[in-house]
């Protein structure tokens, strides 16, 4: 039998020395009362009453005081009640048997009740812990409940480490910990974390630490590590260990629950913000473009309803409106694109794309702007299907080619080349125009940067959007001047590349 559990003292119960005094005092008082009436009761009955008192005491007091009371009562009974009185001698064999039986029954009563109470204590401790863990609303509260309960039940100092989000190793102990963490303790704790095996003092793995460390395992990744050092500086007994493992199991499921809760809260918040953003974005987009659509359609309506006589002049005017609408629309598009990139809501939706299709779509959009340029598209044969976001890449190419149309004179040749290197698609767009002023190269992708002295008609957003979209694909873009003259942009985008079935 192992009674080394530091007792799980219920609130309001008395300290042990006081219990000794009270228990023995009660026995003495009862004996005094009995001595007054022993004449009528007979000394055998007295033994039963004393036994009864010891049994009652064992319900209320610790085992030590109760054993003391049992001993005291046996001595008192023998000394004062069993004839011959005032001696420890026992005259008859019958009385000897009675005294022996008394002692054995008292001992058994005390042991049994004490054992029951130990179990009750443990059940109670587990119950208290479970209840507090259930009531805990956050991971912090779970940690506090764990440290407090283990600390008070095992009479120990506790050091608790909890994993960071998504199973990253901890860096600091939980602030509720009652044991000081030095680097040595930390190193043992992190070993336990990665290996999910207990280690530390009293264990053949890493015994140089002050505390013994137990892993708190979760279904997906370890949730943390719990270090315990009994204040008695003794080893945790097998029985305590069983209970401790029970505690840790409860703590693990509470931690797991809280982590899942936090995760689901974060997801909800994220989704809510995403939804809100989309709604707002769509509504602004709608608000800005509807008037543009109205202007464009009204102008076209005007054109078709006017008398043919003035048509050429009106055509010109409607053409002007049309150009202005297109320019404004491009600006709106750029501003919205930039907003999307800057708000971090620009996750590319990747799907198989034919790079030729993307380039064609951009060229088609810019048919008018590139009317006086020669465009050469040269795509290596091994460039088949690539996983990209069609819409984003189309916009990127459109911006790059639109730039070329603005900043190079008519008659310039724009060349678009594409090839695959390992799992990266490389697209190069270069022209034989004037190239970049060298000092502007480092700033070329900056937001609102425009080459000084360039003609009006740009927002300075186009290239920073291109960079944003390329980076959203985890790719990179560089700008350079070609040695033979002209500007060059190179996009390198890591992407899944389709392997044609042979």
């Amino acid at each position: 039998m192992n009674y080394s559990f530091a007792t799980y003292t219920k609130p309001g119960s008395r300290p042990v020395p006081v219990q000794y005094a009270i228990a023995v005092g009660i026995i003495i008082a009862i004996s005094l009362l009995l001595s007054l009436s022993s004449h009528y009761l007979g000394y055998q009955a007295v033994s039963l009453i004393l036994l009864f008192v010891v049994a009652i005491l064992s319900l209320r007091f610790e085992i030590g005081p109760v054993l003391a009371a049992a001993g005291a009562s046996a001595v008192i009974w023998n000394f004062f009640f069993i004839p011959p009185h005032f001696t420890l001698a026992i005259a008859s064999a019958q009385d000897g048997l009675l005294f022996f039986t008394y002692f054995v029954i008292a001992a058994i009563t005390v042991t049994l009740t004490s054992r029951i109470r130990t179990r009750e204590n443990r059940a109670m401790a587990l119950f208290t812990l479970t209840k507090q863990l259930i009531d805990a609303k956050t991971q912090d509260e779970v940690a506090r409940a764990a440290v407090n309960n283990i600390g008070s039940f095992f009479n120990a100092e506790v050091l608790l480490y909890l994993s960071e989000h998504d199973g990253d190793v901890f860096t600091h102990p939980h602030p509720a910990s009652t044991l000081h963490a030095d680097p040595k303790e930390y190193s043992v704790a992190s070993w336990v974390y990665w290996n999910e095996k207990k280690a530390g003092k009293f264990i053949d793995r890493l015994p140089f630490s002050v505390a013994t460390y137990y892993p708190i395992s979760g279904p997906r990744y370890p949730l943390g590590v719990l270090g315990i050092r009994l204040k008695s500086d003794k080893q945790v007994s097998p029985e305590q260990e069983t209970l401790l493992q029970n505690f840790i199991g409860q703590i693990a499921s509470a931690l797991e629950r809280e982590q899942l809760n936090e995760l689901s809260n974060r997801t909800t918040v994220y989704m809510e913000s995403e939804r809100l953003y989309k709604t707002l974005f769509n509504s602004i987009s709608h608000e800005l473009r509807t008037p543009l659509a109205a202007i464009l359609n009204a102008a076209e309506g005007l054109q078709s309803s006017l008398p043919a006589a003035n048509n050429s002049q009106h055509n010109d005017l409607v053409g002007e409106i049309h150009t202005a609408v297109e320019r404004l629309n491009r600006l709106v598009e750029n501003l919205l694109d930039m907003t999307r990139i800057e708000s971090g809501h620009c996750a590319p939706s990747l799907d198989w794309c034919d790079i030729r299709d993307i380039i064609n779509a951009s060229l088609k959009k810019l048919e008018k702007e590139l009317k006086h340029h020669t465009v050469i598209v040269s795509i290596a044969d091994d460039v088949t299907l690539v996983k990209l976001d069609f819409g984003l890449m189309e916009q990127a190419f459109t911006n790059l080619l639109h730039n070329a149309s603005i900043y190079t004179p008519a008659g310039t040749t724009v060349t678009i080349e594409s090839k695959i290197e390992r799992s990266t698609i490389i697209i190069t767009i270069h022209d034989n125009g004037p190239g970049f002023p060298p000092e502007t190269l480092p700033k070329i992708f900056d937001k609102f940067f425009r080459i000084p002295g360039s003609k009006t008609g740009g927002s300075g957003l186009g290239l920073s959007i291109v960079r944003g979209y390329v980076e959203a694909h985890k790719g990179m873009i560089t700008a350079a001047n070609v040695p033979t003259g002209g500007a060059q942009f190179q996009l390198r985008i890591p992407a899944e590349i389709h392997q044609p079935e042979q």
Partner: protein
Amino acid sequence: MSTSADILVIDDEIQMRRLLRSTLESAGYTVTLAETGKDGMRLATSERFDGIILDLGLPDIDGIDVLKELRRWAQYPILILSVRASEQEIVAALDAGANDYLTKPFRTEELLARLRSALRLFNTTASRETVFTVGAITIDLDAHLVRKHNEIVKLTPTEFSLLALFVRNAGKVLTHKYILQQVWGPKYEEQSQYSRVYVGQLRKKLEDDPNNPAVFLTESGIGYRFSAGD
């Protein structure tokens, strides 16, 4: 074709409604206007129309929901109006049964062309035409014969069924998902590389310049459109 068709326009913007009315009326259509999704659905159930132009950004009900509700019983063409940067929305609308889409701002002539093409397609699906000619290409669906400049072009069975799908829906935008469903089966809806690869092969065999397609057109981020050449 007669342009006395009845068109219902559902758009919450008064300016767009007025403009669409004048544009469509001057093109010979009879136009009814609705301001909200609810109004639109009420009108669509109580009166007879030949086609609907539906703005996706309605204040009361999501345009897609209006579309789904209408498609439960209405067969006639539904054209949707939307703004760019919402390709997924357009794809969703097309998959929910919209016939075509236009992004704002759009050209008046583009709108009229799309509407005309959708109405014509709807009215000719009943006819059992099996031989089609698009530019230099002749396709005989019954005989499984494809000619280009009078020369027979050999197509694999999959290429042919893809081409047949395009021909039957000439002028209409088909989403990747729809193409995969129709040609390869519902299990292949996510295997988007198939449609790309096979469209590429059809282009190589049938386009004059496969790198600059004029017949099998790409709709950015949405799908393909078989140009009937008008």
